[in-house]
């Protein structure tokens, strides 16, 4: 039933509903976690672009491994960090499928660095949703390569210091310089405006793939209230104020012709 149908039978206008590509299961995500918001954005776009019947999602390892329980499309689960390689295999044998990976920052920016760099370098026609909350959430809040300087985690209890633990890794900027990358952008889920802009970025990524463009990545800055030791509200404020200062928002590259452009 579409919004149009509802309007003919009911004078009330329905402005919010569960996307068809989102299952009606309660998620296992913690209160204040951003995964639910990003899942919803992806599901809305799968609906809006009518992609469900031709989509193969590639799940990664971390809190979002269960994305396949919530996004109602075909899914394959990858070993930790290997989603871009798995997506490459899917893409090459299924040229007509819509293929995306959904990865966290531990998965993509630490153990999976080689796989993401080379999928981007090859210009694989895939869309990468990269949810960066700066921490290993599933294993109990350890430091990630994306953890902010000074941030306390269970494996950097005195705070991350550059001298021994290095610097936060701006991997999306690093990928953006590769000619195989058609689109690279960073959004956030800190407030409704940011969510709308993030959705536009992911839409752009999806549309580039549908138009035959090469690799695209949208990094979504997200929250981990439990890992950060903050309330849901405080973590949103921290995201908007402090995380964004290290990871600036915006479109880094938009050249849909990819390597040819």
């Amino acid at each position: 039933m579409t919004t149009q149908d509802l309007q003919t039978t009911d004078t009330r206008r329905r402005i919010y509903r569960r996307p068809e590509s989102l299952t009606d299961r309660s998620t296992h995500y913690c209160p204040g976690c951003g995964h639910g918001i990003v899942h919803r954005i992806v599901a809305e776009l799968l609906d809006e672009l009518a992609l469900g019947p031709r989509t193969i999602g590639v799940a990664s390892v971390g809190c979002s491994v269960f994305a396949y329980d919530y996004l109602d499309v075909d899914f394959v689960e990858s070993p930790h960090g290997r989603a871009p390689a798995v997506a490459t295999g899917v893409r090459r044998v299924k040229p007509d499928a819509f293929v995306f990976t959904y990865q966290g920052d531990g998965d993509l920016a630490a153990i999976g660095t080689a796989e993401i760099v080379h999928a981007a370098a090859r210009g694989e026609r895939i869309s990468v949703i990269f949810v960066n909350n700066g921490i290993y959430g599933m294993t109990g809040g350890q430091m990630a390569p994306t953890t902010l300087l000074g941030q306390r985690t269970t494996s950097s209890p005195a705070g991350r210091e550059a001298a021994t633990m290095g610097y936060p890794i701006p991997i999306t900027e690093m990928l953006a310089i590769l000619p195989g990358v058609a689109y690279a952008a960073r959004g956030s889920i800190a407030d409704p405006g940011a969510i709308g802009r993030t959705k536009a970025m992911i839409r752009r990524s999806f549309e580039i793939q549908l138009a035959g463009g090469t690799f695209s990545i949208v990094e979504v800055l997200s929250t981990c209230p439990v890992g950060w030791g903050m309330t849901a509200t405080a973590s949103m404020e921290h995201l908007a104020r402090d995380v964004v200062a290290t990871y600036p928002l915006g479109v880094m590259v938009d050249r849909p012709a990819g390597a040819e452009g």
Partner: protein
Amino acid sequence: MTPVLATTPSPVRPILMKGNEAIAEAAVQAGCDAYFGYPITPQAELLEWMARRMPELGRVFIQAESELGAINMALGAAATGARVLVSSSSPGVSLMAEAMSYMAASELPMVLVNVMRGGPGLGSIGPSQADYFQATKGHGHGDYRLPVLAPSSIAEAVDLVATAFEIAERYRTPTMLLTDGVMGQAMEPIVPSFRVPVRIPGTWQLGGADGRRPRIVRSLHLQPEDLEAHNRHLQAKYRTIEEREVRWAGERLEDAEIAIVAYGTSARVARSAIERARDHGLAVGLYRPITLWPFPTEALAALATRLRAILVVEMSSGQLVEDVRLAVGDRTCVLFHGRTGGMVPTPGDVVDALRRAWAMTEDRPFEARRSR
């Protein structure tokens, strides 16, 4: 003891091919949809053959960024039901252990060729059979088994490529073809007549949920009850493979008092040694496992009851010998001759080992053993 594998006479003229290239072409002919690899000696010719042949046929070839990349691309392609081949050599196969466990757990068919080289570590680029444990005892983490086929000639390798795809797809399991640097590099005549495995339709392959419920290819089962049920399912499948897929070949075993147990290149050396030993009056034969898992245990145990000794010959410090001892128990005495590091046993060395075995077991004459 009937050899399982029979070569069908063919009117096609034999051609001379290098092992790596013959295996690659056999996969192409078997309808392989996608190949993923990474350069490593002594398997590089397999990758190079596919680099030329697959694009020629409009099929998928990718030289990956690493063996990790290659095997995970294979995982993705296999999840759609594609017929997939990956090849590497020992150190590269170690890197693939992770994804092999995931593929066994997710029940994805795929054929992996390991052209073994000397180890451990970077080892050497010479031929070896030191990955027997790795191939047959698990490779990656968790409770799973891997069917392993070990050809001892290039012609047999060509045939077993098709068999490997058949086993992989029939049982939805990764399957390994285990060769070595000699088999990879040597040239032998093969009959260019190939078997094309029949495609088995299924309800698990991903391709987009168009008019059906979405499918998930996964290995995560967080509830212990669920994972135990999944493990029981996998183990039941492995029991079926053990019942149906055991392959071995026997040569000159009818009157043998000592049997050499060897596979692959070692079996070739053993064959030469057996001819020479027979010239010296020693009644010896060859028991050659073709499936290393499932191991041909029962026939070997039966044979052992009438042997004065078994001599295991392998290019390792003693790995196959453990399965032989498990199979025969105290039915006969099990001796071992091995070379490592890229060294190949010579027929002369094996004849010497046979003579020592003969002398050691003079007090255990053949007839006495048989009547026991």
